[in-house]
């Protein structure tokens, strides 16, 4: 069996992972990124809309600065974020955008003079300043006070990913693609690397490293309807929770995006609404401005998704063979805009729907989109529980997003966090010496090999991996969706516990030889069900509504009892529920909890004396 040594090992070659690797390489350390797919196919490349940084170059961004970006981010999070981290983020984002420009990103630039833009279906005019010509341009996104989203047409993620991967090639950062990490090598105190499975041959391989980072993206595929790529399956998270000592933060905070297309849940960017697209109901009438007079379509995603669902429940949805949906209207933006700045949207509509958005409405519904929860880290990106383990990007709960992240803040987070944490890792590597115990490594490899053998030989049973996966997805869809309540969540937890038992009895139908995709799915299934339980059980305990977590039976945001972060552990493999602990949402308070200015504003303030409403166990 092959053993590969490196100073810095990154599980994931998306923007967060590669950015951190470049930083470590700049400091003179060897770095390897593992990835299921070639780096540029990582989900970062699917991001269309853009990334936020308060450059303030556009006339509509005038007066913008890190303070305003910070305030938007904290409000967006519904005060669930770590404010120290949000501050670090807002301050660093402009520098990182400029750095990306230096490295090769073809950002759209300011063109001085008159141009028109749309808001709420109406046409307006703006005049870009002469002295800003050629600086990085920005567009509007939901939940932001200013135009702050830097973009390259609507292929921002793709363009930034290309540049970052080029930078890795230049700096000698290796990317081992078609390689899947399946277990951490650790002794309960320190992490020494991973056992991985080669997706070219099916063989196991050991990676040993002084520092290991989880930058494996989101885990939306535990839901049946999601905008996420098929590789966003949480496999890397499950190897962390399997250690028993690394907690997941805020797993109940799941973002649903307002505009997934029906039926395939492919995303059309928030840029559609940012650029002036409107949402229409079955009567082709606008409705968002009735619920949100001020922000309308441009309130934060949690708010828009909720009103859309509400509006459909009130009987204004469009019936279709795939369930109800609403319409997105961008026709008034005109052909040039749609085939230029929204070309990906145009292509998605024509190739996947057979809809021409220049003349026709786009069928949309809210769908799972982003995981605010993930491997809990401190502000330096170090994971709780294990020395030498770090996390960044969507996989992490670094926690600048709290209970709802703003559009454009995630892609920006990947490079900002990757840079900051990469620097911290270089410092850590500077002062660290590691000894690799062969017995520890051999034990882990043996354990993984026997798991594989048991699956291939159906030693524990012959449950069908795809059927159990479906049972898990359906349970979450029914019970832990946009609107949640006690009854639904209890049923969901019970169904997931059943799925957990079944997941332990999975056996393959195929022979498991070589790369075998069925084996790959089976290896992570039990862990996925455990993650689903962290989502549902965490949501059941959290008896309030905050950001994307919306309880119909506890409609207020309860700062008195719930201004905290859930930490979910899976302490023993045989447990049937996660162990939940809580910590304060933020130690540093720059902006005390208040009204977001959009969405509903029922708040039980932290100063309210204790009445009913219990604290989670």
């Amino acid at each position: 069996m092959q053993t590969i040594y490196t100073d810095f090992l990154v599980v994931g070659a998306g923007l967060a992972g590669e950015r951190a690797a470049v930083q470590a390489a700049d400091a003179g350390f060897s770095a390897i990124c593992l990835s299921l797919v070639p780096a540029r196919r990582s989900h970062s490349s699917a991001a269309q809309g853009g990334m936020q940084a308060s450059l303030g170059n556009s006339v509509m961004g005038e007066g913008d600065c890190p303070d305003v970006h910070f305030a938007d981010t904290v409000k967006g999070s519904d005060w669930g974020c770590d404010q120290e981290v949000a501050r670090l983020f807002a301050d660093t984002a402009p520098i990182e955008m400029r750095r990306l420009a230096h490295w090769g990103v073809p950002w759209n630039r300011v063109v001085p003079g008159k141009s028109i833009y749309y808001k709420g279906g109406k046409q307006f005019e703006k005049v870009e300043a002469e002295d800003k010509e050629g600086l990085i341009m920005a567009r509007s996104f939901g939940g932001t006070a200013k135009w702050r989203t830097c973009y390259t047409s609507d292929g921002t993620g793709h363009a930034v990913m290309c540049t970052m991967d080029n930078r890795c090639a230049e700096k000698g950062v290796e990317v081992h693609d078609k390689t899947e990490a399946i277990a951490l090598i650790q002794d309960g105190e320190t992490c020494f690397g991973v056992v991985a499975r080669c997706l070219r041959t099916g063989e196991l391989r050991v990676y040993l490293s002084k520092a290991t980072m989880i930058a494996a993206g989101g885990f939306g595929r535990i839901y049946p309807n999601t905008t996420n790529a098929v590789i966003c399956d949480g496999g890397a998270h499950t190897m962390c929770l399997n250690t028993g000592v690394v907690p997941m933060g805020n797993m109940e905070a799941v973002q649903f995006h307002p505009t997934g297309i029906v039926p395939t849940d492919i995303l059309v960017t928030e840029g559609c609404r940012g650029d002036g697209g409107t949402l229409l109901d079955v009567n082709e009438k606008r409705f968002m401005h009735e619920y949100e007079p001020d922000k309308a379509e441009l309130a934060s995603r949690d708010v828009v998704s909720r009103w859309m669902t509400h509006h459909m429940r009130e009987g204004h949805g469009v019936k279709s063979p795939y369930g109800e949906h609403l319409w997105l209207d961008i026709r008034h933006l005109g052909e040039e805009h749609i085939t230029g700045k929204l070309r990906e949207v145009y292509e998605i509509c024509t190739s996947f729907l057979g809809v021409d958005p220049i003349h026709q409405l786009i069928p949309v519904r809210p769908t799972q989109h982003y995981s605010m929860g993930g491997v809990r880290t401190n502000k330096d990106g170090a994971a709780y529980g294990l020395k030498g383990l770090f996390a960044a990007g969507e996989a992490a709960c670094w926690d600048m997003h709290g209970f709802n992240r703003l559009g454009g803040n995630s892609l920006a987070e990947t490079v900002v966090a990757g840079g900051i944490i990469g620097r911290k890792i270089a410092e850590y590597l500077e002062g660290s010496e590691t000894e690799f115990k062969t017995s520890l490594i051999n034990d882990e490899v043996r354990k993984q090999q026997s798991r594989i053998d048991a699956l291939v030989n159906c030693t524990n049973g012959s449950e069908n991996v795809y059927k159990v996966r479906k049972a898990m997805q359906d349970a979450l869809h029914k019970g832990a969706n946009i609107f949640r309540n006690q009854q639904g969540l209890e049923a969901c937890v019970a169904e997931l516990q059943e799925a957990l038992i079944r997941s332990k009895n999975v056996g393959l139908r195929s022979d498991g030889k070589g790369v075998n995709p069925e084996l790959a799915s089976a290896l992570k299934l039990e862990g996925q069900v455990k993650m689903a339980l962290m989502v549902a059980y965490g949501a059941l305990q959290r008896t309030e509504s905050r950001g994307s977590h919306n309880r119909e039976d506890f409609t207020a945001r309860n700062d008195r009892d719930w201004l905290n972060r859930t930490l979910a552990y899976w302490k023993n493999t045989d447990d049937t529920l996660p162990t939940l602990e809580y910590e304060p949402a933020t130690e540093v308070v720059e902006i005390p909890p208040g009204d977001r200015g959009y969405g509903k504003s029922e708040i039980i303030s932290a100063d309210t004396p204790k009445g009913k409403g219990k604290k989670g166990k």
Partner: protein
Amino acid sequence: MSRLLKFNIFRYNPEDTQSEPHMQEFVLEETDSMTLFIALNRIREEQDPSLQFDFCCRAGICGSCGMVINGRPGLACHTKTRDLPGEITLLPLPVFKLVGDLSVDTGSWFREMYTATESWIHTDKEFDPTALEERMDNKDAVAIYELERCVECGCCISACGTARLRDDFIGAAALNRVARFLIDPRDQRSENDYYEIIGNDMGIFGCMGLLACEDVCPKHLPLQNQLGFLRRKMGITSLKRIFKK
């Protein structure tokens, strides 16, 4: 009743000593809005869980799912079955190394290409975190992005006669990459530097100009223009070099 689709799918698992390359038939009932992504996943989940193929974004943006669909390289995720006849033949992309069934190794191929073309901005300027960004004309930015839209699916390479004949030919995707840096004002490489990379039979002079590449490119990249542009540039550079000698 909807159509019954007949799929002929190439099967071979190089990691299984018993496996021989062959075609296997699967039958599936067509559903509304069915794409090859939906069809292949159903075949795997319901009929043969060992079937290997690659999808990632399933939205036509990552380039994972290139394969030969009824004789033509294309992206499987945005191919709708309703646009195909009732009998569908699927083969892995040629040129690239086969991983198994419909899955090929595009990653290694493209990684070699980055090294060969030095696919990054060459500049001696240092980044200054305290300064404003360097200005750039929006037209230049848009033109660069236009070429950077390549998703590295490998379709153009697989459709290219030259690439099939000689494995050292760098292919349309690589030439397009060179053009991307050539027009970037931030890249300080000279035409002579590029000539070192592509001014030979492995590069621009190996291209026979038959343009199968542009026909199959799912992102509709203007490959023809780029090839012409490079041929002219490199032709002139070549003449200059001859006269200098």
